[in-house]
């Protein structure tokens, strides 16, 4: 009996290892977009007057590309009030609340240290890859962790590369490698558009995202698009249930 439990435990650990590596591999294509973004972040940090250590330290602790870019731009412009920078960061990152809500049902079944670690590592990209895996095969914390850690180390190391070699690299963002991200997300999106409601959610989100990008500051378009589209999706689900 004990022997059986031990072998069961061993095979579970083995599966977890496999899931972890699959998570790392799944981030491969997205790294094409992350690495030039991180290098640019490193270069921008130095241009804004931060030291090499400060710039890398920010990537290590904050680990949020968009808000780091905004903060560095503000610091370069002479804004050094931590309250202003914290508020701006909060606004840029509010969208993570929605992603956290969507993943919470799976994450609350994990141990607290794992919940804290996975939350600290939550990004748009980690969310996109992890939810696609949930959609196909169900949730795996090991996979989620593999995805998150791969993105984290790539971000920190590419920031480091940016501060060390920045002066030798001419504007890495102009290479067009940032196209890797929308391209990957397209492949993740299509399998979801199976029913009428999903297609409507997609269209509403697209329209709101474009309108929001034109008229709203920062990343607010993500929040309005997500709230508006999912609200309509939820209402239509209700109507469909009522019809049946």
């Amino acid at each position, binding site marked *: 009996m004990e022997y059986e439990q031990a072998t069961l435990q061993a095979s579970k650990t083995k599966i977890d290892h496999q899931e972890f590596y699959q998570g790392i591999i799944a981030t491969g294509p997205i790294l094409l977009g992350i690495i030039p973004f991180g290098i640019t972040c490193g270069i921008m940090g130095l241009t804004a007057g931060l030291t090499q250590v400060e710039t890398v330290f920010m990537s290590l602790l904050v680990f949020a590309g968009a808000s780091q870019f905004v903060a560095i731009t503000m610091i370069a412009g002479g804004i050094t009030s931590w309250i202003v920078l914290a508020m701006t960061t909060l606004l840029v990152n509010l969208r993570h609340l929605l992603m956290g809500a969507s993943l919470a049902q799976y994450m609350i079944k994990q141990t607290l240290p794992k919940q804290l670690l996975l939350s600290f590592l939550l990004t748009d990209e980690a969310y996109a890859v992890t939810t696609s895996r949930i959609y196909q095969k169900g949730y795996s914390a090991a996979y989620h962790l593999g995805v998150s850690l791969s993105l984290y180390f790539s971000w920190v190391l590419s920031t480091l590369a940016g501060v060390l070699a920045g002066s030798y690299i001419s504007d890495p963002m102009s290479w067009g490698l940032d196209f890797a991200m929308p391209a990957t997300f397209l492949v993740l999106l299509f399998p979801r558009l199976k029913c009428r409601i999903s297609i409507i959610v997609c269209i509403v989100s697209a329209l709101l995202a*474009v309108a929001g990008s034109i008229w709203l500051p920062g990343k607010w378009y993500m929040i309005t698009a997500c709230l508006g589209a999912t609200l309509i999706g939820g209402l239509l689900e209700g109507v469909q249930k009522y019809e049946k």
Partner: protein
Amino acid sequence: MRSDILVIIFSMAIVTFATRFGCVALFRQTKMPVWLERWLKHIPTAILTALIIPALILPKGQVDITLHNHYLLAGILAAIVAYKSRNIVSTILLGMGTMIVLRLID
């Protein structure tokens, strides 16, 4: 490291963590209501769309629906490949290839 920069980095880190852990912390305490689950179901589709579409239509921050917008052209091609193949590698290779070719000829 200067202390004022350190304070900035720590406050940014705390605020960011709060947005990432907030909902998980909330649902540790209370069970998730059914209506909310129904609503959350569509978040991935909405977020993926909101990440893709502005990156293709407003790559530089302004709406650009012209033949000079390489992101849009490569994005349309990538969408077709993604739809047909469901394969990330071929979608990226063809999409990036299109980006490079467009840059050379435009």
